[in-house]
């Protein structure tokens, strides 16, 4: 884990300090003179040799203090902590619904594998996956919120209940977009297990098919499913950026887009490093969960 983290830090450092050009020119804006650029360079520490700058960056990561946003002057740590809540309000229900529905549908489809229903559902999934998420958002927002008035078009409030009302349509759209690939993937996990000997044994001893699927097969298919859910969690924090942008939800994803639009490097740097850390922590958690699900797995 440590070498990977060091690698991420180095990658971000190289991207922003060498590829990105001189940040003083971005900060000083169009009307700048040599003196003010020199001033900004000194403030940012860009005039120091590279190892001093790397030291500054490492210290920022260790102390969770990335300074202030270049665009708004807000402290970067405050930005991240205040944007986390809205993101989670959308992501937690979305992930739970997606996983539960995905597993239930995958088992149901695997139950009738090879039939016309199975093939029709799989074809529908492929077609559904081919439509851009943008189209889902634009059309659903227009028809369900703007025309039919079933949901608020966009906005965000203060209380959790109020926010869940705003989050309902984004969650619905997220579900519509993510269910197709999830179903296809989980179906293949389930089908890998259906051919195994233990399934035949379970059937041979007279268990009903429902029990074979929901207890025997599901327990074994759970390992790749857990890997998938856990691995996609940190990515989803960013992945919901289109939903957050369209529905005006002040989450992490929208913050990334805003930061890229405004060249707000400290915010992007901080989010990249922390999301990478989150990814690694979740990978570790996945390994621990394996042990709980499958007693045969031993961690060394």
């Amino acid at each position, binding site marked *: 884990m440590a070498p990977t983290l060091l690698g991420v830090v180095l990658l971000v450092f190289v991207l922003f300090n060498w590829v*990105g050009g001189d940040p003083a020119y971005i900060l000083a804006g169009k009307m700048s003179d040599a003196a003010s650029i020199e001033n900004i360079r000194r403030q940012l520490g860009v005039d120091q040799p590279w190892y001093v700058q790397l030291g500054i960056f490492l210290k920022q990561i260790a102390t969770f203090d990335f300074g202030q946003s270049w665009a708004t002057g807000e402290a970067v740590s405050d930005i991240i902590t205040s944007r986390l809540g809205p993101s989670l309000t959308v992501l937690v229900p979305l992930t739970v619904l997606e996983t539960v529905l995905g597993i239930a549908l995958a088992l149901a489809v695997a139950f009738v594998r090879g039939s016309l229903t199975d093939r029709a559902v799989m074809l529908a999934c492929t077609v559904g996956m081919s439509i851009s998420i943008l*189209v889902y958002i634009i059309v659903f927002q227009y028809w369900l919120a703007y025309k039919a008035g079933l949901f608020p078009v966009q906005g965000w409030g203060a209380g959790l209940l109020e926010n869940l009302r705003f989050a309902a349509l984004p969650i619905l759209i997220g579900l519509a977009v993510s269910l197709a690939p999830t179903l296809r993937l989980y179906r293949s996990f389930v089908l890998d297990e259906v051919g195994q000997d233990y399934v035949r044994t379970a059937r041979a001893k007279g268990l009903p098919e429902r029990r074979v699927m929901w207890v025997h097969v599901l327990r074994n298919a759970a390992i790749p499913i857990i890997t998938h859910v856990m691995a996609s969690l940190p*990515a989803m*924090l960013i*992945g919901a950026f289109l939903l957050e942008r369209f529905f005006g939800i002040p989450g992490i994803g929208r913050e990334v887009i805003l930061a*890229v639009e405004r060249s707000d490097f400290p915010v992007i740097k901080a*989010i*990249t490093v922390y999301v990478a850390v989150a*990814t*690694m922590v979740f990978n570790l958690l996945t390994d621990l969960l394996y042990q709980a699900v499958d007693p045969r797995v031993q961690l060394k």
Partner: protein
Amino acid sequence: MHAIHDSAGLWTLAWRRLRGDRVAMAALAVVAAFLLLLAASASGIVAADWEEEVAVNYAPPAFVAAPAAPAAPGTAIAGGTAPGAPPANEFDPLAGDLRELRATLGQAVAEPAAERAPSLPFGADKWGHDIIKKTIKGGETSVVVGLAAAALAVGLGTLFGAFSGFYGGVVDDFFNWFYSVFTSIPSILMILTVAAVLQQKGVLTIVLILGLTGWTGPYRLIRAEYIKHKAREYVMAADAIGASAWRKMFSHIFPNVSHVALVQVSILVVGFIKAEVILSFLGFGVPVGVVSWGSMLNEAQNELILGKWWQLAAAASAMAVLVTAFSLFADALRDALDPKVK
């Protein structure tokens, strides 16, 4: 007596399996039709004149046009010059130049406006561009980006994977470290970060962003193939006749793993077309003046509120058809080239 019949090779067998699959052949036909159309548009045979303003602003498609024909084309909003020009400023340093320009451009601008069509087969956008031609032109950009970026990503992945799998040891450790660094940052965040840093728009920039961040998937698969193949007898035979490491890697082993690379290209193209559309939609993709499906969706988002749905429908359905066909074909290709997976 000579043995007449050659035994069929991998590609012949794969083609035979593919031909037996009706869904795959239909998908291949659709993909081929798209690619032909886009090649024609790239070489200027069709849709070269998409930027001509041939119809009135937001001209509706012909099949819904009949009832509400708009008033005289000249009165349409945003038709060019605003009705009430501001009073002349005598200190305006550009006034002289502008007057000169207006005089020379005057006739040229005024003329085509007169003969603008009230409706088109699939409508027109804000400026009166033909939507069908615009969709073809936009598709050209999106597909070229998808193909070029996928080729770059798979090229990089193959190169890294070959070195990593063939040499093993420290080289393998280094590339694995590199791989774990790249995969610990979610790809969309990586793409946005690179877009923020590069600060310039352009088709080449998107290709580089997508290609340089997308090599991890092919790398993992190609590396596994090279580890498997380097211990085989034909590689030992090549070693015995004194073939160099480079030659063993790329002229002996690579043809035997090239089907993995091909399948990866076809899978990545689909993902990259989708990614380009999102990047261009957000404004980090193609520059102003270049049309892609993403920039069309960006315009369509505001048009929908005005009830002008045709640009959205054209871009969305063209993309959905191509991507569906491409992914069905990619699935069939994987099954045909790697029958074990089934």
